[in-house]
């Protein structure tokens, strides 16, 4: 067995505590991914709502993977810093930089493999739990049996190992750079210098993000929304790469007035001096605040945008819902009922869609359908129209001949005759002539847009329909509010699903960094006590350090969120007269409060815990 592997194994055993964070992060990530993949394989193809739920779960697992890279990178980076002296010693007794690098990678592999196996086992439980949940929510008709196929578990475990290796990559490179002379010195790595590669990656990420921000400002609304979800990740990676240079500076500037304070001044100096630790602590706070903040605002603005479109286009003053029978009264002028039929486009860009049969003249009158390109009056016979954003996914456009498959089994070639402006609330993305839709099984969905007969005003129509007693009779305003609420509730569920695990990761990373930091700083704390600080002052110092770093990270995260939101607002309001502005302050503040709480608790607990610990034993070790 090569020396590096033997040493790597022994080292993981010895430094178990240093790698606990990595282990938990990878195991949890693998469990989530494995659970989702297992469930997807088990359920298979079961209609649009199940697909939507599964893709939401997929996004959640993806975010978890992204955050896991962060946690592993931060814990391994930390472990390397904490062991500089030991690594120097290894170099001194004859290890080449390559051997040191390999040893750290072996350690990562050992931790990752153990975590991946644990995670895969847990993944089965996650899949079972999700299956129960989906059945309880009525999303699947009954509890899906979870497959015993081992491949999904193997794939997820593989992903976990790859994620861990990516996270440990930079740390292993840094470990190889520890000079042998380090064995003779106290470990005092201020680490304010960053490697060339790290600088380049950071700069590329920030440049890419800047380009995307320009894209958000200039692009169409749907593209802007998609970019707004990816920009924060890039900015976060870029800022974290430059963190050791940037963060101490930022904290110094922000806390300049505190420099004369005995305890806070010391905390400020510590934050500035320990650039690596500061970055490890700031990274998860920055990640969660920037990503969650942007996501919350983007989704809220998207709902605002939808509502703005609906306000702009909806001409019918009365909307009747929850009835399959058309409301009927003498006061009714034009009535336009919604219906739906699923269809699949075939060929390379095959996708499932929900289509709606419309009569163009009626739909323009009641729902204000706007033609972007083409001619909606030609929507007769074997033709279709699609909304502008759907062109993006569909892979076909105006004039295309598209082969579609209806649920009744017939295949029909359809020509795209028009592209209409998006109005997700008012109509489906694919529009068919009413007769074609009906011929292939389109069913009414229970919503009716109603215009009054000539000479009748909206109030009279509303009263008449209420008296008639069919369905739920709403004014346009009431209907818009109801639809908006439903959409925001749905967004909320999605946000919790995506941000829950992400937040959990951020918590693990913060707690891990602070715990490791405190263990590593025992001697420093002792010295601080010996020069006359009380135990309470040491606690306050640690607390102040964490608060300063978390504060700076939250400020950066808020800046990212605000930038994305400001730029996103323009394309989301362009061409619309009345777009509400909804900033979900409660959710945003909840994120900030959660970050602050985790940081503070994780800062104080280890210090209190260390107090009751014999420090002599600690000084014997490094």
């Amino acid at each position: 067995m090569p020396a590096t592997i033997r040493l790597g194994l022994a080292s993981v055993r010895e430094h178990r505590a240093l790698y606990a964070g990595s282990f938990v992060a990878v195991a949890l990530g693998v469990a989530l991914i494995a659970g989702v993949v297992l469930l997807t394989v088990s359920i298979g193809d079961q209609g649009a709502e199940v697909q939507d739920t599964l893709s939401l779960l997929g996004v959640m697992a993806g975010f978890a993977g992204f955050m896991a890279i962060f946690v592993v990178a931060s814990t391994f980076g930390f472990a390397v810093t904490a062991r500089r002296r030991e690594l120097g010693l290894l170099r001194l007794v004859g290890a080449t930089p390559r051997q040191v690098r390999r040893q750290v990678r072996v350690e990562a592999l050992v931790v990752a493999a153990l975590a991946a196996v644990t995670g895969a086992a847990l993944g089965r439980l996650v899949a079972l739990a999700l299956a129960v949940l989906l059945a309880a929510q009525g999303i699947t008709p009954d509890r899906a049996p979870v497959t015993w196929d081992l491949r999904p578990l193997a794939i997820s475990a593989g992903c976990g190992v790859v994620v861990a290796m990516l996270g440990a990559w930079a740390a292993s490179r840094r470990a190889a750079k520890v000079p042998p002379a380090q064995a003779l010195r106290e470990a005092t790595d201020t680490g304010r210098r960053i490697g060339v590669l790290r600088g380049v990656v950071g700069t590329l990420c920030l440049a890419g993000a800047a380009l995307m921000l320009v894209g958000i400002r200039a692009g169409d609304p749907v593209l802007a929304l998609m970019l707004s979800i990816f920009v924060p990740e890039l900015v976060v990676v870029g800022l974290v790469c430059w963190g050791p240079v940037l963060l101490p500076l930022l904290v110094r500037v922000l806390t300049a007035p505190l420099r004369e304070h005995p305890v806070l001044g010391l905390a400020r100096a510590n934050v500035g001096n320990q650039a690596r630790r500061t970055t490890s602590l700031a990274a998860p706070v920055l990640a969660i605040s920037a990503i969650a903040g942007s996501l919350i605002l983007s989704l809220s603005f998207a709902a605002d945008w939808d509502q703005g479109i609906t306000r702009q286009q909806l001409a019918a003053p009365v909307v009747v819902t929850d009835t399959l029978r058309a409301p009927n009264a003498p006061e009714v002028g034009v009535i336009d009922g919604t219906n739906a039929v699923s269809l699949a486009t075939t060929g390379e860009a095959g996708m499932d869609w929900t289509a709606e049969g419309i009569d163009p003249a009626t739909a323009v009158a009641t729902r204000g359908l706007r033609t972007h390109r083409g001619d909606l009056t030609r929507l007769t016979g074997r033709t279709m129209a699609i909304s502008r954003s759907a062109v993006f996914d569909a892979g076909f456009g105006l004039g295309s001949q598209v082969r579609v498959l209806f649920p009744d089994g017939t295949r029909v070639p359809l020509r795209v005759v028009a592209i209409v402006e998006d109005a997700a609330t008012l109509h489906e993305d694919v529009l068919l002539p009413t007769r074609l839709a009906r011929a292939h099984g389109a069913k009414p969905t229970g919503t009716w847009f109603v215009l009054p007969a000539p000479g009748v005003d909206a109030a009279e129509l509303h009263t008449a329909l209420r008296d008639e007693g069919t369905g739920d009779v709403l004014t346009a305003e009431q209907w818009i509010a109801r639809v908006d609420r439903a959409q925001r509730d749905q967004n909320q569920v999605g946000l919790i699903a995506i941000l829950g695990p992400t937040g959990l990761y951020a918590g693990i990373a913060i707690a891990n960094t602070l715990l490791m930091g405190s263990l590593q700083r025992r001697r420093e704390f002792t010295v601080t006590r010996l020069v006359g600080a009380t135990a309470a002052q040491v606690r306050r110092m640690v607390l102040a350090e964490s608060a300063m770093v978390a504060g700076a990270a939250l400020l950066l995260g808020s800046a990212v969120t605000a930038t994305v939101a400001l730029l996103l607002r323009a394309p989301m309001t362009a061409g619309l007269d009345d777009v509400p502005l909804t900033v979900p302050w409660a959710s945003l503040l909840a994120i900030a409060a959660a970050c602050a709480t985790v940081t503070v608790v994780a800062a104080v607990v280890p210090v209190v815990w260390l107090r009751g610990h014999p420090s002599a034993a600690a000084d014997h070790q490094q």
Partner: protein
Amino acid sequence: MSTATLAPPAIVLDGVARSYGSRAGRVDALRGVTHAFAPGSFTAIMGPSGSGKSTLLQCAAGLDRPTSGRVLVAGHDLGLLSEAALTRLRRDAMGFVFQAYNLLPALTAYDNVALPARLAGRRPPRDEVAAALTRVGLDTQQRRRPAELSGGQQQRVAIARALVTRPQVVYADEPTGALDRTTGRQVLELVRSTVDTEGLTVVMVTHDPVAASYADSVLFLADGLLVGHLARGTATQIAAAMNELER
């Protein structure tokens, strides 16, 4: 004795200077040190804090590169070697013992001693590793981790590791600094007897006149320059010379 003086020196320092640039200004840690260490010699380096003792040791071992001047170890000019070649030379020709934290905490005493050979890609001969541990009196503690050994035992494991590759030169930085007087004396006697029986060259930085009295000769360093030399001095003579320097 005459054959020893005719053999080429184990270590040559030729006008070695080392300065560090810092924001506060330039610091000259060494300002031109020239000395040849004969093979089979045991030399102590003494001097007040900040005199450049540790820098001298690090330059002599290739852990630090001189700003000017040359260092030769076993005939190799360290300035001409790549990092990898330097690592190989360190692995094959040099051993190290310092004040504390000499051992990898994850490995047993045996594995710590066997590590240099393993890093060189060789299978360490079991009997040689065991013999090295026996020679330092630790034949029964081979399976212990550093945390389960006393400070003196840890130092002896470090010496066993420094000797097992049969290096030509051993560098020691305050090897007894963290030990009590009795344990320290045992460690020094061990070093002394290895020099006598195996013809090893030892360079030891210390501030303890008693430790220095185990050496063949003592070099005194002040402000980055060699300022004195004392052969076969007693602890009292060495202490007197130090007092003179620090005045």
